[in-house]
């Protein structure tokens, strides 16, 4: 299993390794060949032979990718059937979260607390009002016209922003000293964690309208969002519970000694430490949630994946499934890959901080 110590990347070292392990060398060379061949095939298809501008499928080079299809449909893939004249509203809704996030992450920014509170409380309400309109002189855009990447972001951000506070409450209730509250929460969390998301979405579309008082209706995206929120809040609650349990009991006792009440202790002492401790886990939940938004296709919503799938049956652009799915894949992949790197960097940073703490305090917990 171990290469000899001479296996450095020098000509003599490589030769020595090759002689010592002929099979492994054969495998290595073969794999290198496969990797190079694959790379070449992909570059050839996606770049060299690709067509970027064409009116229909027939105008594309059949040897390469037909990106003209994607470029042609890009506005639809981004906004769905949102009216063209009103798309500035969608732009604001899409660009606000990254702008807020950048502001909140700026070092020594005084209003961070307000930004975060605003992001979780004001943003969903404001975004919903802006997108659907019907007041303040904005024309009404019914939610069945929302689609594409816009809908994916609404569902993803909406479900996170709604499920996060819910998850905090669930995690606190899960660790409560009151048995009735604890067992109710355990039941709630385990129920949602045991359900497939497909079934959850079916249920929210079928059952929620039955649960509501007669005459009270929620639109389809609203129903799907409710299901996704409940589902992801259960997972998020378990992550946050891990953080709460990692905060030492001394912290709560010290706060109690300072005559802090329960909520003040949680808000100022426990939660900040707990959330920081499980930040990588929270980021991983965001990744999972973002990937899960594709499931809204099941209840007939046209999110990015579904709108591209629907466009594949356009008679002018038949047989371009690969291009369509590669496009969707690149968007999801970039988002998830970047976030997963953020998550693992946070983890590495934290383990470094913990190690320093241990050195400073001499504890080996």
């Amino acid at each position, binding site marked *: *299993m*171990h*290469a000899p110590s001479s296996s450095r990347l020098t000509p003599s070292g490589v030769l020595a390794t090759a002689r010592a392990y002929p099979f*492994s060398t054969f*495998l*290595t060379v073969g*794999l*290198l060949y*496969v*990797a190079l061949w694959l790379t070449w095939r992909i570059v050839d298809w996606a770049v060299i032979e690709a067509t970027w501008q064409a009116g229909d499928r027939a105008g594309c080079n059949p040897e390469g990718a037909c990106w003209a299809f994607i470029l042609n449909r890009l506005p639809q893939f981004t906004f769905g059937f949102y009216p063209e004249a009103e798309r500035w509203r969608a732009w604001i809704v899409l660009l606000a979260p990254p702008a807020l996030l950048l502001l909140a992450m700026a070092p020594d920014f005084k209003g961070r607390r307000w930004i975060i509170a605003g992001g979780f409380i004001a943003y969903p309400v404001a975004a919903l009002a802006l997108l659907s309109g019907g007041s303040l002189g904005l024309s009404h855009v019914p939610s069945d016209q929302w689609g594409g990447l816009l809908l994916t972001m609404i569902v993803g951000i909406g479900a996170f922003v709604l499920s996060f506070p819910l998850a905090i409450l669930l995690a606190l209730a899960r660790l409560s*000293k*009151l*048995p*009735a*509250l604890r067992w*109710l929460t355990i039941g709630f969390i*385990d*129920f949602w*964690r*045991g*359900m*497939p*998301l*497909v*079934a959850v979405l*079916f*249920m929210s579309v*079928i*059952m929620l*309208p*039955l*649960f*509501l*008082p*007669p005459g009270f209706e929620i639109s389809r995206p609203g129903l799907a969002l409710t299901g996704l929120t409940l589902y992801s809040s259960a997972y998020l609650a378990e992550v946050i519970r891990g953080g709460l349990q990692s905060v030492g009991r001394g912290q709560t006792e010290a706060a109690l000694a300072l005559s802090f009440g329960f909520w003040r202790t949680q808000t100022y002492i426990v939660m900040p430490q707990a959330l920081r401790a499980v930040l990588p886990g929270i980021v991983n939940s965001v*990744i999972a949630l973002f*990937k*899960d938004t*594709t*499931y809204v*296709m*099941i209840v007939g919503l046209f999110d990015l*994946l579904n709108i591209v*799938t629907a466009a*594949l049956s356009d008679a002018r652009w038949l*047989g371009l*499934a*690969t291009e369509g*799915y590669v496009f*969707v*894949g690149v968007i*999801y*992949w970039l988002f*998830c*890959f970047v976030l*997963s790197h953020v998550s693992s960097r946070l983890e590495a940073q934290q383990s470094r901080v913990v190690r320093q703490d241990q050195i400073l305090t001499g504890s080996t917990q």
Partner: protein
Amino acid sequence: MIGPRQRRAKRVAFIQQALVLLAVGLLAVLIARNTVINLQARGLASGFDFLWQEAGFKIAFALIPVDATSTYGRVFVAGLLNSLLIAALGIIAATLLGFLLGIARVSPSPPLRFLTRGYVELVRNLPLLLHLLLWQAVILRSLPTVKDAIGLGGIAFLSNRGLYLPMPLLGNQANLLLSALGAAAVMAAIAWILHRRARSHGEAPPLLARGLSAGSLLLLVLVLIGLDWQVPQLSGFDYRGGLKLMPEFVSLIAALTLYNAAFIAEIVRAGIQSVDKGQREAAAALGLSSRQILRLVIVPPALRVIVPPIANQYTHIIKASSLATVVGFPDLVNVFLGTSLNQTGRAVEIVAMTAAVYLVLCAAVALATEAFNRRVALVER
């Protein structure tokens, strides 16, 4: 001794819990009342009697005989079995591929490490549903029609209508077959016990054990050859005979396997890397072969790290089997929560039954994991 302070705290706790229960109870009553009103307004019946009524629709793939005259109860069982079949196949295939990839992730060969890392990073950062739709498109579009099906050694065929496999005919030989299989199982069991006893005494396994295990293997091979295999034959526009797997089924298993294998690979890698390097070096210094090191030194402690997250992944596969609905494969959600609910309108009953199935399955995986954890924890001492 309970002081006045504690007594007061106890009273407060009691009142708080009573309030919580009251609030939840009120919510439940409100929801139940709304549901009853809404069901009546829509003219929907309730009760479980529909399970004995005729369903009137066909199921494209079922492990038990189901036709248009079957009851909803039978449709439920057929859908459940299909879901279990997908989950079981997905779990087995994803575990095998995941372990291979996970071991390759820590292999001494840099290109192998690089390629498997690329695979894992590519696959797990894409939504499972995208994998599924992509496979569905690939299978439906790139595979040839039945006429030009790709032959796999002349006994299995792959076309855009699905995968055709040979299947044994279990007619009059069934009894003979079952007794042969039973005999092979008994022989293998005795051989295994003898092996274990010999190993725990530090002796070489007796000749009888070797003979028995060879015998059971021989019997198994004989049974496999002796079976009346039915090979799919092209007749008219489709293959007849053998086992036909729908393209939806094939793409579902492919997507579940490839996606979850990437996660299992990472779990396995973390497990192997959790074993201290010194342990491996010490074993090598004691003169153990690399196979012995893997089996005796690395795998036992690594399993303790690997099993809990892998069980989590199995739960994920069981739940993700419901994606069959998207491609139109008749799993439980598709035939029961979908078609049956549409036809009968028994929303509450059907949702409750479906939820119960998945909760029971997840609880079963959790219990099995706990049992396993207890076993490996005992080995530690």
